[in-house]
Structures are given as C-alpha cells and as structure tokens.
C-alpha cells in the first residue's frame, strides 16, 4: 500500500512542481508573484477538455497536451499584454503587479464561471482500465501518465535553464537585470521567453489536473496555492528548490490525506508554509546571494 501511496504522491508532487516552476520562473525574473498563473491553469484545463471532446474520436492525449500548451503560451502573452506591459513601461512598484495578477486570476475564474457555472466536468476516459499491474503491484494509469509527462517536462526545462544560452541569460537577468543589459542581453526578449515557458507549464499542468480531477473554475487557483507553498518552501525564484519542495509536498499530502483525511491536511500544509515564512523566508535551497565589492 505505501508504495502505491508513494508513487501517487510523487505523481501529484510532480504536477505541483510544474505549477511551482511556472510560478517561480516569473518570480525570479520579474520579482513578483504571478497569481494569474492559477487562472491560466483553469482556463487551460477547460481548453483541453473541449479539445478532447470536439472530435468524433478522442484525440491522443499528447496532442491535447500540446494544443493546451500552445494556448497557454497565447494566454500568457495576452495576460502580459493586458495587465503587466504598461506597468513595466512605467517601472511601477511590485504591489501593482501583485494586484494586477490577482485581478486577472479572479477575472479568469469569473469568466469560466459565467460559461460553465460551478458544474464539474470530467475529461473523457483515455485508458480502458484505471489501473495496471507490474508483477503484483498495482499502479494507477493516470498517476503514472501524469508522473511521466511531468518528469519529462521538468527534465526539458532543467536542460533549457541549465545548459542553453537563453537559460543562462534568464538566470543572469534573475540575478541582476541591470548588469545583464551590459552583456548585450535584451531584457524584453527574456521576459517574453519567461512568459512563454510559464504558459507552456500552465497548459500542461491544466490538462494533467483535468485528467486527475473533475474540472471547475477555481481548480487552477487551488492547485496553484500548492505550487505557491512549494516555491516558498523551496525558495522563491529557486527552480531546483521549488521542484524538490513540490515533490515532497505531494508525497506528504497523499500520506497525510490517507491517514488524517482530506479536511485536516490543508491546515497542516499551510501551517508548514507559515513556519517556513517565519523561520526561513529564503527557503530550503535559497540563500541570499551577496555581491562582493
């Protein structure tokens, strides 16, 4: 039993990791918490749902994920265009970004509520059986799919950030935007890249959450809170920290839910977050980098 719980936990944690990273990457470059990410996840979950149902025969899931990811990018650019672009031009203080992002998130949820009410929608089943066996151990097919897709996404992302020229530039802008310009880095391009990455992550995590849960307008915001907890515990702006914290969070959540029930679990999780904020606001991986003079 505990092995199944562990796999289920890692699977859930890996989705949280996608969310946390989408959140943390925007934070690291633009230095604000992009709460609109939750609304975008919800929107992408619906987009995936309609895409799945709009063909006579259900399209393969990877096509749906790809389509939703592309829509996520478009949506991400749209949110930036509507809500953040002007703030950037005015070099507005962070509090305005914070307000704009919360407003966008609520607006998206309201738009979804108008169209779909608060009814639950379920993705059409994509597997004939909900479980499969390896030897005598039973695995959930959806959890396994989610785990594989998420880990693949995270691997691509880590490669992108750690090994490519654009990834290095993103890290440089995150550390010091002003000095990055002196390296010839076009900060406008980096911001576009970051929103594109966040959009892809919102698109993929939206569909994965839709496959696991029924979808409703506030699904993304609720799940994003978990991603937010993970990125706080992992250190805001630290990708590896956020991923590690997200996976631990998923496992802890599944075990706690199994032993304590789903009502008291969130209290414990949010309690842990408060403790982290009070004791170690820079997170488990974070450290405040100092410039030597």
């Amino acid at each position, binding site marked *: 039993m505990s092995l199944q719980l562990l796999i289920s936990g890692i699977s859930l944690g890996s989705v949280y990791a996608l969310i946390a990273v989408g959140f943390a990457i925007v934070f690291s470059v633009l230095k604000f918490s992009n709460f609109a990410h939750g609304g975008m996840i919800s929107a992408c979950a619906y987009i995936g749902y309609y895409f799945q149902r709009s063909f006579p025969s259900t399209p393969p899931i990877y096509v749906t994920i790809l389509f939703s990811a592309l829509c996520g990018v478009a949506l991400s650019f749209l949110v930036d265009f509507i809500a953040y672009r002007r703030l950037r031009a005015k070099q507005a203080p962070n509090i305005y970004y914070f307000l704009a992002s919360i407003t966008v998130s609520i607006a998206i949820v309201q738009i979804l509520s108008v169209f779909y009410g608060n009814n639950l929608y379920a993705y059409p089943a994509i597997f004939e059986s909900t479980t499969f066996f390896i030897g005598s151990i039973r695995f959930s097919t959806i959890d396994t799919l989610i785990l594989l897709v998420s880990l693949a996404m995270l691997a691509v992302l880590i490669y992108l950030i750690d090994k490519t020229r654009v990834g290095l530039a993103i890290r440089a802008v995150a*550390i010091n935007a002003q000095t990055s310009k*002196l390296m010839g880095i076009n900060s406008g391009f980096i911001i576009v890249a970051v929103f594109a990455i966040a959009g892809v992550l919102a698109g993929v995590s939206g569909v994965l959450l839709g496959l696991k849960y029924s979808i409703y307008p506030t699904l993304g915001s609720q799940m994003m809170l978990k991603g937010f907890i993970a990125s706080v515990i992992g250190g805001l702006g630290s990708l590896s920290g956020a991923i590690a914290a997200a996976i631990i969070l998923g496992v802890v959540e599944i075990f706690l839910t199994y032993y304590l029930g789903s009502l008291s679990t969130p209290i414990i999780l949010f309690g842990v977050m408060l403790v982290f904020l009070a004791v170690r606001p820079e997170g488990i991986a974070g450290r405040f980098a100092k410039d030597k*003079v």
Partner: protein
Amino acid sequence: MPAILEVRGLKVRYGVHEAVCGVDMAFEEGKITAIIGSNGAGKTTIINAISGAVRREGKILYQGAPLTDKANRVVRRGIVQVPEGRKIFPGLSVEENLRLGAYTVKSNREIERLLREQYRMFPRLGERRKQDAGTLSGGEQQMLAIGRGLMALPRVIMLDEPSLGLAPVIVTDVFNNIRRIRDEGITVILVEQNAKKSLGICDYGYVIENGKAVIEGTGAELLCNEEVKNAYLGAAREC
C-alpha cells in the same frame, strides 16, 4: 589617428539634477583614454550614457555614425562596459559568467577560443572555472569582470573604477592588464579615481568636474598640470 568614438554636447539628467552638462570628448582608436575626477563628478554617468544605460541628450558618434541608445545593441556594436563594483553574477560559476560576456557572440567555436584565451590570460579564473563567482576575492572578481568584458570581442572597452577596493599589488596587476588590452588594439576608456596610476598609463585624459570636462591633454601633460597636481595628485610632484 581618427576617433573611433565621439561624444558631443552630452547631457544626462537625473530628475532635476544635471549630472553631465554638455561634455565633448573624442576617443582615439587603439589608445587608452582616461576620465578622472572626484566622486560624483559624472564620470560613470558618461560611460553609462555611451552604454545606453541612462537616458541622454546630445550626440554619440561611433565610427562616424550615430550610436544606438539601446543597451543590448551597443554591446553588439562592440562597445562593452566593465561596470564599477565588478557586478559579476554571484550564484553562477566563473565559466558561466564568462559565457554571459560572450552572449552576443554567435559561434560556439569562437566562444570556446575566447574562454581558453581568458584562462590563459587569467590562470586563476581557469583554476576556479567551476566555482561560484560570488566566492572569489575582490581581485579575482575584477579579473573575471574584465575577462567577461573581453569575451564580447569588444572594439571599445570601458572600465569603470577597476582599481577600486583592491590591494596595491593587485592594482598594479590590473593596470598591466589594461595596457595589454590596449596593445591588442582594443580602444580603452578608463574611468578612475586613482588619477596618478591612470594618467601614468593613458595616452590621453579628461578631467571631469561637476559634469563638465574642464581639462584635457595627454597623460604626461595632465601629470604636469598645476591644477591637476593640486586637486588630484596630492603633494607637489616633480615632472
């Protein structure tokens, strides 16, 4: 020799305060031009204006044509700034810092060649290439900042206070490197509070006071100038 870079009637305002008020300067190709002056005189602002890091008025001509005011494009044109306080990227390795310097260089082979060149020039950086750049000593960070600037294959390199906060023996090292960079044919603009050292190695120099270029001349001329001697070189000095 013609000037590779020229500044005409340059003005920079910070709010109501005018930090640079109408400066004319010419920087000769392949030479070291020093800009000296006390703290707050506007030296850094002048090179930030050339870099496109601050809003400016007036003309900047590069190879005879107006220079873009977009910071990232200025680097692409071959004008690179090594900022005051090194501004290396802590949390990134020494090698990653150097690679960022070559952000505008497209060819991978060229980047590898440039890396080898910096490691040859600054062996300490080679020994520490995998190390977090934030853990380097002040002198090593200055070497890294200069190496990072050279990674962009500059035609003009602007060094802002490269000797600041360094031990005397390291300062000598830094100035030797500046001379070497000039000898490779790169035009050097040197902003310094250390007037004696910088006038000692420069080909031409400007003295900046309150946002204006008040005195100019060759390094030797400035070293013998009574006003410069009194204000910047300390006690009377024989020429």
